[in-house]
């Protein structure tokens, strides 16, 4: 059985004036895995991630989703293609309710004339769906789905953002520093969430500076250095200090890139 990548990037290049933020970078994500992306500040990992989720348009290179070449003009297009992103700032509207936030930009309308002519929202359907999704991820100790997001704690907000991404993603979920602003306990909760989402077979791209978290949940670690992919390792084969050494150039990268079992690159 051969495992084909969900998404591949080849020779991705992005320039801002004279600065090359990404120089012929490659990327592979396989089904069912958690792929962590680590790299020093300025290594270009956020440019890579933005290119994957449509927030940045690449100058050169090709991106393939399930083997088909694609190009996203906006985050909206990436989202329509089934790629959901949990942004570091979460991209939630504080004054709107949990349910409103989950459906922001993709509201469900009522059936019949009420929906087609008067564009009436089906609030009940959206609330029920939001409640189901939060319950699935074990977050439904929420007092009310109509509660404003600003009344939630940081970890709870992260939960809502992750639930939103997991509910609507059909290809994979990108999480940008999901534990960066959280305490020990809430970080743990989010790591569990990542495992839960992975357990449903949804691949995850995890960007993080937190080595213990990366080594705990990642199946493979993509190390970004000097604007391109420097190495891909398996957390079982290397220590955290090795990963940091490869990332900073203190150690040579392994000759071979780690691939999931049975994986085929075309």
């Amino acid at each position, binding site marked *: 059985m051969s495992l084909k990548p969900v998404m591949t990037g080849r020779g991705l290049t992005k320039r801002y004036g004279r600065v090359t933020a990404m120089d012929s970078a490659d990327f592979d994500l396989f089904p069912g895995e958690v792929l962590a992306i680590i790299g020093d500040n300025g290594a270009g990992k956020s440019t890579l991630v933005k290119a994957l989720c449509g927030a940045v348009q690449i100058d050169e290179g090709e991106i393939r989703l399930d083997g088909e070449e694609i190009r996203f003009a906006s985050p909206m297009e990436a989202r329509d293609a089934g790629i959901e992103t949990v942004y570091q700032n979460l991209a939630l509207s504080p*004054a709107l309710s949990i349910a409103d936030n989950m459906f922001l930009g993709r509201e469900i309308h009522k059936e019949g004339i009420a929906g087609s002519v*008067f564009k009436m*929202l089906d609030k009940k359907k959206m609330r029920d769906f939001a409640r189901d999704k939060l319950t699935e991820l074990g977050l439904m*100790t929420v007092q009310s789905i109509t*509660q404003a997001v600003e009344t939630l704690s940081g970890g709870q907000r992260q939960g809502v953002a992750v639930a939103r991404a997991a509910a609507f993603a059909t290809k994979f979920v990108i999480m940008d520093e999901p534990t960066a602003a959280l305490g020990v306990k809430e970080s743990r909760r989010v790591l569990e969430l990542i495992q839960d989402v992975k357990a449903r077979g949804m691949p995850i791209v995890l960007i993080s500076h937190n080595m*213990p978290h990366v080594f*705990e949940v990642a199946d493979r670690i993509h190390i970004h250095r000097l604007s391109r992919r420097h190495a891909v390792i398996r957390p*079982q084969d*290397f220590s955290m200090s*090795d990963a940091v050494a490869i990332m900073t150039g203190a150690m040579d990268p392994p000759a071979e890139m780690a691939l999931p079992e049975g994986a085929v690159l075309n």
Partner: protein
Amino acid sequence: MADDRAVPPRGPQDFEKVLDQSSTEAASFEMRDTSPLAKFHHFLHANPTAAPVVVLILSCLVFGVIANNFFSAFNLSLIIQQVTIIGILGAAQTLVILTAGIDLSVAAIMVLSYMVMGRLAVQGDVPAILAVVIGLGVGLACGLFNGSLATRARLVPIAVAVLSWVFLLGLDLPLIYVVPIGMIAGLAIGWLNFGPALELRLPPFIVTLGAWSIFFALNLWYSESETVRSQDIDATAPLLKIFGLRVELLGAQFTLGSFLMVGIFIVLWYALNWTAWGRAVYAVGDDREAAELSGIRTDRVLLSVYGAAGFLCALGGWAAIGRVGSASPQSFYEGNLDAITAVVIGGTSLFGGRGAIFGTLFGALIVGVFRSGLKLGGVDVLWQTFAVGLLIIVAVAMDQWIRRVSA
């Protein structure tokens, strides 16, 4: 080197072991505050119209006791008539303020629109209904002009409007036709949505401050500083005054304009609360970047909001002809401030994303009730204005307090 390659830990870190013994309620969404004040605080936070409703009821009761005639059907219907125009302008202003913007040109748009309606119908021999439609189009064009400067400005419509003015004036066409034709031409070209665009994203405060002067100057140029007289409107275009007609209801007289105002509020309430557009308006005002990342096309939403505001101002202009009787280019000089006052007293936050459209109706009514009650109580006009000023400051202070609920 080999020693360094110890198997890395998979699973929780050592320091996290103690978490097992700690409380497991971290991710629950319990309410912590239970004191009556905190509950009240939360209630106000969740119901932005609650505060203005309470203030409105209280002020009615107080003035009912102080001033004898306050509760007469005549006085109450007079208050509603007096707040009609400000209510409509306030509704337009609420839309803009919900997006964390402000429109300082609402009154200028209204006056320009009704001057177009009045002059075209009375002096230009244009059928009244067509004059009204063109006036509404002029309001829409003004609103979209503001909106495009606050987002991305297409250059073609503005160029078309200005060039057609120059061209038509060169043909010696009278001014009363030239100005609206140019604006409608710009509006029509704008519909096609082509040509280069500038990503200006200018701050709305400055844009609409400039637009206020521009529209005001346009209005003086267009109207030649002349009023369209009431008897002329009656003679040639009574349709313009339709919102001044009165109907008897429950012993009180209401103008059709009052019904228009209430109708506008109902439509906006529906649009803001029951459509995706409404959610987008709140989301853009709340956190524009987050809205953008959530897939909302924020520029489009903003443009539609300013356009809708301009259109509503023009509708308000139609109602204003009915209310005032004539169409004067010098009226409603304080319309901007009165509209913002109604919005702020109505509990809509100037920082965007928070508030409710009906709050503005109650806000406008509160101002009307204060002015009427103080007048019936024999208080000088200057103290009425003083009281309205106090109301604004109290309303903003309340807003700040309510917003702190999450802290």
